[in-house]
C-alpha cells in the first residue's frame, strides 16, 4: 500500500513538474516535494516489511499484460527487493530535500521542470528495477533507467565535457544491457518462462558451460553498471558532470542496481556456485577497491575523486559477495550469510555516505563554482554546517570507528579472516590477501579524505571564488543532515539495523544471523562464529566521549602554569602566510604517486627560461601528467581495431540498389541451402 503511494507520488511528481515547466518555483516544489513524499513512504514501507520478516513476501502483481501471452509486466516484492527499495527511498528522500534548495541555482538558466520531472522518473524506474517480478519489467525499467540517466548526465549540455561524458555513458550502458540480455536469455530458454519465480534455481537445469557463460555475462553486464575495474571508465567521467543531486543519486543508488542484479542472479538463479565464481568476484572486488582508491588519491577534481571512491566501495561490496559465494561452495552457510551481510551492509552504507559526500560537493560547487580543489580552501569557516556534514561522510567512508563504514568493513574482515580455515585448497590464500588489500584500501581512503577535506575546507581560501563562498541554503543542509544522521545511526546501532537484514539472508542463504551477531543486549557486535571477534561502536563512542574531558583536565592542571605567548605562525622568513604557501592537493599525493609510479606513469615537464643564471628564472612552466592506463592500454586499441574493421566493411556500402538486393538474396539462398 505504502509502496503504491510512493510509486504514485513519483509519477505525480514527474507529471506535475513537467506540466508546470513554465513556473519554475511551482515545478521545483511540486517535483521534489512529491519525490520526498515518495521516498518517505518507501522508507517506512521497506522498514516495516523487513521488520515484519517472513510474512512480507507478497504475491506477484501484474501491472500490464500484453496481447502476446508471455509479455507481461509483473512486480514482486521480496526481502531483497525491500532492502534495495530502502536504499533508494532513504537516499532519494534526502536528495529530494537537498534538491529543493539546489534546483534554485538553475532558475532562469536551465529548465527546472525537466530536471525535477526526470529526477522523479529516475526514482520511479530504479524502484521498479528493484521490485521487478519478471524479465520484461526488469529489462524495460533497466533500459529506461539508463536512458534517463543519460539525459541527466548531459543536462548541462552546453558543456562539451558533459556531452562527451553522456555519449560514453550511453555506449557503456548499451554494452551492459546487451550482456545482461544475453545472460537472461540463456536462463529464460532453460526455464521456458520469463517470470523470476520460474528462474529460481534454474542453473541446475543448465549445462556447466552454459552456467559459466551466463555467470560471466552477468558479471560483465552488472559489473559495467556497478563500475568494476576494468569496466569502470565511464564512471569517473559521467558522475561528476551531472548536476550534483543527480551525481549523488547515480553514485549512491544507480551503481547499486548492478550489485542488486549480481545478488539476485548469483544467489537465486544460477544455483550452487563453483569455486571460481566467488574467487573471480573476490579478485575483481579487490582490484577495484585498490585501484579505485589509488586513482581517487590522484584527483583534484572533488567530484571525480568521489566517483573513483565509488569504484573502491563497489570493490569492497564485491569482496563480501565473492566471499559469500565461495563459502556457499564450501558449504559454510553461516559464513556465507555473514559475508553477504557484510556486502549488503556496505551497500547501504556506501549509498548513504557517498550520497552525503556528493551533496556536500554539490553545496561546495554551488558556493565556489569550481570542482577543482586547488581553488578551494578555507571553506570550513564560511560553510560551517556543510563542512561538518562532509567531515561525517569522510570519516564514514574512511572506515573510522564509530561510523557506519567501519561496521561494514569490520564485518567484511571478519568473513575474510575466518575464510582461511574453510578449505584446504590453495584458493584459501585469497582470503588473507583480500583482507590485507582491504586494509591497504582503508588506509589509502583515509589519506585521500585527509586530502579532500583538508584541501577543500581548511587553511586559507586559494581563490576569490572560495573567499566569497557562502553557506548553503536550509533545504540543502537538511538534506545532508538526514544522511549524516543515517551514517551515525548505522554506525552506532548496527545490531538494531542487522535485524532488518534477517529476512534477506534467510531468503538468499537460509540463515538468520542477527542473534549470533548481537551480544550484550545489542551493545556489542560479534563475528557470528566462535572464532569471530567482537567490537562495539557504541563503546568506542562512549570511550571517546569520556576521554574528551581528559585533555581538558590535563590542560586545567598543567597548562595553567605555562606562559602564554601570542605570535604569528612560523613563515620561513616571508612576511605573512599567503594561500600560495599552502599544501596543494597535488603536493599532498606526491609520495603515493611516486610509490605507485608503475601504475600512474607520471610525467612532468619543467621549462625554465632565464637571462643570467638558472637560479633567477624569468618564466617557469610546469606540467604534470599521468597516463590513463586503462584508456590507452585497453580501450584505445580495441576502439582503433573496431574503426579499422568498420572501414573495411564500408566497402559493402556500395550505394547500388542491386548490390544491396544481392546481399539479401545471397543470404536467403544460403539459408535455404543450409536448411537442406
Amino acid at each position, binding site marked *: 500500500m505504502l509502496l503504491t503511494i510512493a510509486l504514485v507520488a513519483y509519477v505525480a511528481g514527474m507529471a506535475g513538474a513537467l506540466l508546470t515547466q513554465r513556473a519554475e518555483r511551482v515545478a521545483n516544489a511540486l517535483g521534489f516535494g512529491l519525490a520526498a513524499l515518495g521516498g518517505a513512504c518507501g522508507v517506512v514501507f521497506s522498514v516495516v516489511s523487513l521488520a515484519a520478516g517472513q510474512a512480507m513476501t507478497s504475491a506477484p502483481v501484474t501491472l500490464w499484460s500484453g496481447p502476446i501471452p508471455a509479455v507481461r509486466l509483473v512486480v514482486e516484492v521480496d526481502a531483497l527487493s525491500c532492502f534495495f527499495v530502502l536504499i533508494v527511498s532513504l537516499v532519494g528522500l534526502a536528495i529530494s530535500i537537498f534538491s529543493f534548495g539546489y534546483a534554485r541555482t538553475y532558475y532562469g538558466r536551465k529548465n527546472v521542470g525537466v530536471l525535477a520531472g526526470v529526477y522523479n522518473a529516475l526514482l520511479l524506474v530504479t524502484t521498479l528495477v528493484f521490485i521487478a517480478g519478471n524479465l520484461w519489467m526488469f529489462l524495460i525499467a533497466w533500459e529506461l533507467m539508463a536512458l534517463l540517466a543519460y539525459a541527466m548526465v548531459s543536462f548541462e549540455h552546453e558543456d562539451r565535457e558533459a556531452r562527451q561524458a553522456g555519449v560514453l555513458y550511453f555506449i557503456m550502458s548499451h554494452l551492459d544491457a546487451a550482456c545482461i540480455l544475453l545472460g537472461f536469455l540463456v536462463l529464460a530458454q532453460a526455464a521456458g518462462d520469463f517470470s523470476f519465480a520460474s528462474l529460481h534455481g534454474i542453473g541446475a537445469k543448465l549445462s556447466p558451460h552454459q552456467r559459466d557463460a551466463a555467470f560471466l555475462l552477468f558479471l560483465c553486464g552488472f559489473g559495467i553498471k556497478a563500475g568494476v575495474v576494468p569496466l569502470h571508465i565511464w564512471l569517473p567521467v559521467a558522475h561528476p558532470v551531472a548536476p550534483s543531486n543527480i551525481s549523488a543519486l547515480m553514485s549512491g543508488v544507480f551503481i547499486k542496481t548492478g550489485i542488486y542484479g549480481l545478488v539476485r542472479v548469483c544467489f537465486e538463479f544460477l544455483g550452487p556456485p563453483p569455486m571460481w565464481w566467488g574467487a573471480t568476484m573476490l579478485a575483481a572486488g579487490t582490484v577495484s577497491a585498490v585501484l579505485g582508491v589509488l586513482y581517487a588519491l590522484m584527483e583534484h577534481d572533488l567530484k571525480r575523486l568521489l566517483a573513483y571512491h565509488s569504484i573502491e566501495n563497489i570493490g569492497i561490496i564485491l569482496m563480501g559477495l565473492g566471499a559469500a559465494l565461495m563459502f556457499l561452495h564450501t558449504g559454510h552457510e553461516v559464513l556465507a550469510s555473514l559475508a553477504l551481510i557484510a556486502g549488503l551492509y556496505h551497500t547501504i552504507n556506501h549509498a548513504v555516505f557517498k550520497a552525503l559526500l556528493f551533496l556536500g560537493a554539490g553545496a561546495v560547487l554551488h558556493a565556489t563554482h569550481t570542482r577543482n580543489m586547488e581553488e578551494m580552501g578555507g571553506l570550513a569557516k564560511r560553510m560551517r554546517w556543510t563542512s561538518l556534514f562532509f567531515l561525517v561522510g569522510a570519516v564514514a567512508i574512511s572506515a573510522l570507528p564509530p561510523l557506519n563504514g567501519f561496521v561494514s568493513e569490520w564485518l567484511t574482515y571478519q568473513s575474510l579472516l575466518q575464510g582461511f580455515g574453510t578449505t584446504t585448497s590453495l584458493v584459501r590464500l585469497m582470503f588473507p590477501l583480500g583482507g590485507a588489500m582491504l586494509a591497504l584500501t582503508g588506509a589509502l581512503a583515509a589519506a585521500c579524505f585527509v586530502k579532500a577535506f583538508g584541501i577543500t575546507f581548511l587553511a586559507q581560501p586559494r581563490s576569490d571564488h572560495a573567499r566569497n563562498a557562502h553557506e548553503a541554503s536550509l533545504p540543502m543542509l537538511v538534506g545532508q543532515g538526514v544522511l549524516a544522521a543515517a551514517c551515525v545511526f548505522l554506525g552506532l546501532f548496527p545490531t538494531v539495523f542487522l535485524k532488518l537484514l534477517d529476512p534477506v539472508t534467510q531468503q538468499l542463504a537460509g540463515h538468520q544471523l542477527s542473534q549470533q551477531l548481537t551480544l550484550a543486549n545489542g551493545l556489542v557486535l560479534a563475528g557470528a562464529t566462535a572464532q569471530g571477534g567482537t567490537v562495539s561502536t557504541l563503546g568506542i563512542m562512549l570511550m571517546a566521549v569520556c576521554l574528551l574531558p581528559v585533555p581538558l583536565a590535563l590542560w586545567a592542571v598543567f597548562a595553567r602554569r605555562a606562559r602564554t605567548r601570542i605570535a604569528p605562525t612560523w613563515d620561513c622568513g616571508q612576511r605573512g602566510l599567503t594561500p600560495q604557501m599552502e599544501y596543494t592537493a597535488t603536493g599532498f599525493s606526491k609520495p603515493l604517486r611516486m610509490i605507485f609510479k608503475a601504475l600512474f606513469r607520471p610525467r612532468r615537464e619543467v621549462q625554465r627560461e632565464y637571462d643570467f643564471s638558472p637560479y633567477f628564472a624569468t618564466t617557469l612552466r610546469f606540467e604534470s601528467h599521468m597516463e590513463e592506463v586503462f584508456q590507452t592500454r585497453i580501450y584505445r586499441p580495441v576502439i582503433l581495431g573496431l574503426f579499422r574493421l568498420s572501414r573495411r566493411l564500408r566497402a559493402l556500402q556500395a*550505394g547500388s540498389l542491386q548490390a544491396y*538486393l544481392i546481399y539479401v*538474396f545471397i543470404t*536467403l539462398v544460403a539459408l535455404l541451402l543450409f536448411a537442406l
Partner: protein
Amino acid sequence: MHPPSTLEVGSQIIPLMATLMLVVQLLLIAQRMLLTSIRLFAIQSLLLAGIAAVVAYYYNAGHVYVVAVLTLVGKVIFLPWLLTRLVHRIQIHQDTEPLLNAPTSMLICAALTLLGYSVTRPFTSLEKLGNNTLAIALALLLTGFFLMINRRKALTQVLALLTVENGVMLAAVALTTYGMPLVVELGIFFDVLVAVMVLGILVYRIRENFDSMDTGKLDQLKG
C-alpha cells in the same frame, strides 16, 4: 464436405494454375517491354485470384473469396492500370539491357526452381492442395527476387516485388486449407498497395531528377 472426386479435381486444378503462374514469371524475366511486363503481371495475378477462388469453392472457406476478390480488384485491375499510366507519363517504354542476358537468366531461374523444390520436399505432406504448390510458391519468390536484382529500371523492380508478393500469397493459400487469417491477408494486401503507390511516386521523382529511372544512378547519392 464435397465428395472425394471433386476434391481431387480441385487438387489438380490448383497445381496446374500455379505452374502457369511460374511460366508467366519466366516470360516476365525474358520480357523487356514495360507494358507487356505489366500485362504479364496482371495475368499472373489473375491466376492467383483463380487459385484463391478454387480453394474457397472446394473447401467452403468463405473468407478466401474475399482474398480472391481483393486480388482481382487490386492486382489485376488497379495496380496494372496505375503502372500503365506511370509508363505513359514518364515516356519510357523499354527496360535497358539487364545485367545477365536472357539465356543465363533462364538457367539461373531453373536452378532457383530446383532449389525451391528441394527445400520444400519435407513439407509436401503438409500441403492439402496437391503437391508442388508450395515449391512453386517458393520458386516464384526466388525468381522474383532474382528479377529485382537483374533489372535496372525502378518500374521493373516494382513489378518484381509484386511477383514476390504473389509467391508469398500462393504459399499462404497452399500451405493451409483455409488460408491465413483474413486480417493478416488484408494487412499484406494493403502493405503492397501502399508500397507500390509510394514506389510509383518515387519512380516519377527519380525520373524527374536523374532524367532516367535507372536505379544504378542512385549511387550518386552516396556521401
